[in-house]
């Protein structure tokens, strides 16, 4: 992942959150949520500031950050695509949305979730609770329901045009995976 996506943390902002939310351990989850909603992930610098300026210890903070599925420690692309993998989506073909979008974004390494140019990050989520529209994905806050792989690719292309993002020219996979 390119370090270009690393966020620049504003210490004043972190101070402001601590002031609003609190310093005791019960503030741990809301503080992490505030950081993540600002930066899309949990930058190291922001985590350090929390530990320095609250009663929350590094053990507690990292323990909680690594426990919950919502939090990520890696930088995120400029746009996030959530692919729902609830039961209804699984039985109606959520996997094919992954195959299709991985192909469109030229992502082949299982460890990689963000396109090389930092445009889009793919994230599998447990359930969006929209099971009657299965299978579905969410780009930003827009939900696309009842889609197959080809329709997911089309929605991505449309989004990329509107957001002025360049999609990589897909290299075809050479071997079965």
């Amino acid at each position: 992942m390119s370090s270009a996506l690393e966020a620049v943390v504003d210490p004043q902002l972190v101070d402001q959150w601590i002031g609003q939310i609190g310093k005791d351990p019960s503030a741990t989850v809301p503080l992490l949520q505030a950081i993540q909603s600002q930066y899309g992930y949990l930058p190291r610098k922001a985590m350090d500031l929390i530990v320095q300026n609250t009663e929350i210890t590094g053990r507690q903070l990292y323990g909680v950050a690594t426990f919950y599925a919502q939090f990520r420690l890696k930088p995120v692309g400029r746009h996030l695509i959530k692919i729902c993998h609830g039961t209804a989506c699984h039985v109606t073909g959520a996997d094919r949305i992954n195959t299709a979008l991985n192909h469109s974004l030229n992502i082949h390494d299982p460890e990689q979730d963000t396109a090389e140019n930092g445009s889009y990050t793919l994230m599998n989520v447990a359930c969006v609770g929209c099971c009657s529209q299965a299978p579905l994905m969410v780009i930003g806050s827009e939900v696309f329901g009842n889609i197959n792989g080809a329709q997911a690719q089309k929605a991505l292309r449309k989004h990329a045009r509107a957001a002025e993002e360049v999609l990589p020219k897909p290299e075809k996979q050479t071997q079965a995976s």
Partner: protein
Amino acid sequence: MNMKALEIIVGEGTCGIAAGAPEVIATFKAEAPEALVRGVSCLGMCHQEVLVEINSPKGTYKYAKVTKKEVPRILEFLKGSGEQVTENLLLAPNEPESSDHQYLTLQTRIALRNVGQLDPTRIEDYEARDGYKAIAKVVSQMTPEQVRQEVTNSGVRGRGGAGFPTGVKWGFAANQKSEVKYLICNGDEGDPGAFMDRSLLEGDPHNIIEGMLIAAYGIGATTGYAYIRAEYPLAVKNFGLAIKAAKAKGYLGKNLFGTNFSFEIKVKEGAGAFVCGEETALMASIEGERGMPRRKPPFPAVAGLWGKPTIINNVETLSNLAWIINKGGAAYAAYGTADSKGTKVFALAGTIKRGGLVEVPMGTTIRDVIYKIGGGSSSGRPIKAVQLGGPSGGCIPESLFDTPIEYAAINATGAIMGSGGMIVMDSKTCMVDLARFFLDFTKVESCGKCTFCRIGTIRIREILERICDGKGKMEDLDRLEVLSRQVIESSLCMLGGTAPNPVVTTLKYFRDEYEAHIKEHRCPGATCKSLITHKILKDGCTGCTLCEKSCPTDAITGEPKVAGSYEINMDKCINCSMCVEVCKPACILVE
């Protein structure tokens, strides 16, 4: 017709928005500026979104699957200058009810009574439907004991899945002597495939607040927490707005209704952990810890959040309380069976014609829910099983569809009622793959505290993976049974205690599918990638090139526009089935 006389109501829940409701609303407003256009919460008729109800002097019309394209035609008809838009029509005055509309009329809606009927952001809408009358009655005319007795009389049991009698549970906390007691609303709906709590929180938030008030009065709590999944942004938003409105109107805060009863509610957003649906894990999460369950006893009713007596009630349980107080416990108990009283909401999805939220009296058979209300299979293929209760539940085969929906009868099948996720599966679903899917989920969601849950779920999943790959042995089936029993018996909380259920039930009812994978290297559901092949049928192929374009590995080649010329190179094919989805003449065979 005068457009001013029209009231146009558009379903705008998460499903409606996903299907394009904002666009439809904007088009109605632009095309009929004089009409009253309102967005309401989701009616739970998700398969028909975007759903539009129009009240006109001629009567009520309902249209389904409306896009902005149909809007002008619908308005033309109402003006009297155009034809009825029959393909979208669901209900019209003086016409027999369509079978699609029976989806609603066959239901008995108590928990969902307001969903889709009101604008959740307007407290006046809720007040107009007897809102906050129950809590006013409770505070001014009833003692906490009487409230608990009324709820006990109703027979309502915890709708989060455990099914413990709610009134009895409250009694444990009420008997504790403590200045501080907590009431928690459990809206951490982590079961993939269940969305009734989302719909209630975003569609009728004041009903949940009133339910929390009633419960708080019944146990003597002064502070409440609403723990809501962060994945439900609209629910978090609408519930937050509702709290503000309730405070402003004097339904939340100090000395309510001129008495010494005070109650406030704080919202805690969950951060994505299935195990936090478990009571002690949920409390750990509110306290700011990793959401790991602890040993019971002491039960939360005795020593819960920050060591104080705490009652945790599920969203759906709370949504019944105001109705029970207004109509009486006996009226609620009149529905259902001896074992299970009242109604239950199910989230019907999968390969079903009419999916969405379904509320039926306990005792209704699974078959009636799937065929009468749900309309049967959506794929044309026969329905093979229904998955009930999510990752903690099990698969019930078609042969047992006459089982009545009540706690004891469902448990006897090996599945559980759970929170009410009901996923319908047709003959194209592989039951081994489904078991693997659920173990994938529980393996990740296990908090890691108990060895058998932490490691056992990984080992079970490995065996299932092996079978799906066609590398399983018959001994594996015995090993699965032994391991499942060990995980169930050696886990502290019900995550581990139920995690093997999907394996146990599919082995019990669909053992032949496991054996086909192992002995014949064949996947009867045509799902497992290692055991299937894709083939283009020469007779059907029109040479349209769509399959070639969709293929991520360049495995498909042929002459454009030459019928029957396309072929799949098996060395390159990864069996992803993307070509099958785009093939218009459906001539790609998977077996």
